[in-house]
């Protein structure tokens, strides 16, 4: 859990969501400080969308407390709705409105000043998502990526303090993804908190200052990408030592060291899996040299973030 001294932007305590006998979220406790771009990762059915729907007041939880910027969303629904900006998965748009009309409607619904002030704000948001040229186009005529950007513009309109974005990057081309990343960073710099989910995991790691991983309705890990990797128990790495002779002796010595397993000899290389701290790994290297073994190279390969999450997803499928 991420700790903060000031009121956190999102504070979830003991959240539970049931659909009949199915538990979608199981006692989730999570804090997101202000100004973060916080990522939520998990396989299908992990509880991401349910979490987002609770945070946006669209789903009443079975129990638990949720505070957005200090506002209890179960007690003060309307204030919570002013604070939050929500971009749902698949980003639906009405088929009977043009882009500017769709945005103007939302600007009016959020009470964003006079007509000219609203127009100005709509123009700003369209600029932000690079859709100014298409403002007179019908929403139903947009491509998937353009639709995503329109809905993102709608989400930005009322300058929400907390933005909940469900899969915002899906359907975007690489350029648009980069722009989205930059836009989210900019918003965070301005004091907004962005809570975002994605299946493009490497991208989420790039985009977010922190992230958390959910599986089967439970929070598995949260923190920076590195902290998450460690919390998920992926301290294991594959080490390859390329030696100038005495491979058998080196292998025998390594085998006797704690944390070393699945050792293999491949020509002048000794390949083995190692579980332990960075210090222990350093000691291992020093030990080899102390044994008089001439070490040419020593390579480390950690499991990628992708691998870890695939593993999580696989465990989700298992009964």
């Amino acid at each position, binding site marked *: 859990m991420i700790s903060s001294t000031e009121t956190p932007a999102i504070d979830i305590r003991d959240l539970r969501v049931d659909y009949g006998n199915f538990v979608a979220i199981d006692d989730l406790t999570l804090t997101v400080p202000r100004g973060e771009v916080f990522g939520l990762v998990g396989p299908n059915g992990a509880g991401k969308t349910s979490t987002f729907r609770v945070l946006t007041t*669209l789903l009443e939880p079975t129990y638990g407390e949720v505070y957005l910027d200090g506002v209890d969303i179960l007690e003060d629904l309307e204030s919570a709705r002013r604070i939050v900006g929500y971009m749902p998965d698949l980003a639906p748009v009405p088929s009977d409105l043009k882009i500017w009309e769709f945005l103007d409607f939302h600007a009016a619904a959020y*009470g964003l000043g006079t007509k000219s002030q609203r127009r100005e704000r709509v123009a700003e948001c369209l600029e932000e998502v690079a859709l100014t040229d298409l403002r007179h186009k019908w929403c139903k005529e947009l491509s998937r990526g353009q639709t995503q950007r329109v809905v993102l513009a709608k989400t930005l309109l009322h300058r929400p303090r907390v933005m909940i974005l469900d899969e915002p990057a899906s359907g975007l081309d690489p350029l648009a993804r980069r722009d989205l990343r930059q836009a989210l960073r900019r918003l965070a710099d*301005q004091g907004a908190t962005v809570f975002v989910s994605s299946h493009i995991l490497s991208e989420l790691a790039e985009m977010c200052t922190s992230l958390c991983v959910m599986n089967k309705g439970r929070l598995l890990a949260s923190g920076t990408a590195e902290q998450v990797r460690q919390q998920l128990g992926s301290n294991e790495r594959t080490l390859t030592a390329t030696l100038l002779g005495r491979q058998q002796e080196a292998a025998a010595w390594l085998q006797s060291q704690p944390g070393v397993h699945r050792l293999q000899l491949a020509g002048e290389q000794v390949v083995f899996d190692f579980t332990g701290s960075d210090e222990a790994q350093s000691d291992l290297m020093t030990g080899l040299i102390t044994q008089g073994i001439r070490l040419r190279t020593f390579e480390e390969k950690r499991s990628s973030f992708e691998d870890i999450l695939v593993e999580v997803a696989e465990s989700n499928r298992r009964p």
Partner: protein
Amino acid sequence: MSSESALSSPSRPSSWKPWANPIFRRYCRSRLRPRGLSVWLLVTLLLAGFLFFLCRTIALYQAHLSPEDAARVPLIPLLILQTLILFVLGTAQVSGGMTAERDEGVIDYQRLIPMSPMAKVFGYVFGLPVREYVLVFATLPFTAWSLWKGQVALHAWLPLYVVFFTSTLLYHFTGLVTGSVVKNRRWAFLVSIGLVFCLYTITPQLAKFGLVFFKYLTITPVLEECWSGLIPKTAGAVVSSVQQLLPTAKFFNLDFPEAVFTVFSQAGLVVTFIIMLARRWKRAESHLLGKVWALLFFIWVQILLLGNALPLVDSGNLFPSRGFARFARLDFAWEPNRLETVGMSGLYGLVTLMMVFILGGMITPTPENQIRGWRRARKQGKTSLPLFSDVASGSWMTALMAVAGAVGWYIFSRGLVESRWFPGHLVPLSTLGCMILVMLAAGLGFQFLLETRGGRAVGLATITIGVAPIMVGAVMFSIGSWLYTAASWVVGLSPLSLPLYASGSLLSISELPPDFERSVPRAFLFWLLVAVLVTLWQLSKLIAARRALARRSLEEPIQLKS
């Protein structure tokens, strides 16, 4: 974007100014685009103009009416056109539009916008059918000209158009509720048109059988009242003399103009619909009506049914045969038929039972809701659910409704039987006990089943126990008189037949045909006993199921399912 602006708090849009309501304005924008509107406008003007000129020229040149009378002739055809546009097209648009919002997925955005639930309801109810309003406004010049040239008095057309507007609201709210409940766009469209058709044509027919209140869901009573002032004066005089014979709107000892009472009756329903929609806008998971409101609504309808019906008993205007006798000019020797009186009492019981089913179903929590309620209770350290919350059992309120309904049924039956038409006949208090048993057995049996087993089981039971026996019985009746006894036993199996059988068996005026004289009372008592036993068995199942659910949710650890 500055950091200051990023944290700014927007103001709340006004709730009560329709022109400033963002949802209304959004639909004005999308539904009043010149391209789409112009075609509809052209068609409407063409139709209105056609009706106006055709009626007027026929009146002037074929019927040789005076210019003043001829000007009045197009009024009713124009009203029919306006009714079709707003009642049928408008209602379908409201329910279809609402479902479309959910279909497209944009309804979540509308849930999140910081407008009050009421503002959202009004935005939709006036915004979705805005094109139909414009089309009706486009026909108004023809109406205005006819009123002006026809010198129609204000008191003749104003009540009619006020009720036309309240009926429009009632039907549009019906459509909005349908759109909020029915998930498929095409179904919502069809169901809403079906509902309007039902509300306008079938339901008011109940008024002819003693349930006078139902005719006030339409503009018909007001149209009948204003009719003479809207048609040519010569015909108007005849209609006016006929109108003297028609009953006026009576509510217990009070007399009302038809328009006032219609507005009063419709307003109650409109308020109930607004409450339903506001609840749904606040929380999508909410029941359409809260438990207390459902009970109050039920009692309110009972009071209206009784208040409208009882004052018409002594004059004989409540009885359907009186209407026939009047038209056949035989009413000088008219007296109510005993069988029709018993039928009216049974029909009252049946309609009341249907209301118990509908409202009881509305306030019954699903097993999912109950589990949520119990788990929340566990978290809060409680061992019971709040009595009036959506997650609490709907049985208590259904029982109260059933008892209130039985009391209403008893008062109605007593009003009929103890009237001047049947001297010496009384309805003893023990009949009330039996009526309460009928309502409790059928109403609670339905509600217990719904709460324990869910909607699918109730649907299956309705078909197999509710409808099928009546169908089988009908076929048996049609075979021959030798099967009448068996058929009455088969029909009696259906809980829907219990109120009719009860009236036939319990009221002293009942003179059943010889074929049914013995079988109906016996079948009634037997099936009532069975219904009571089955309901008690259902009650034990419900108690056991609720206890098990509570125990599982309060004590046992909850297993995760993948």
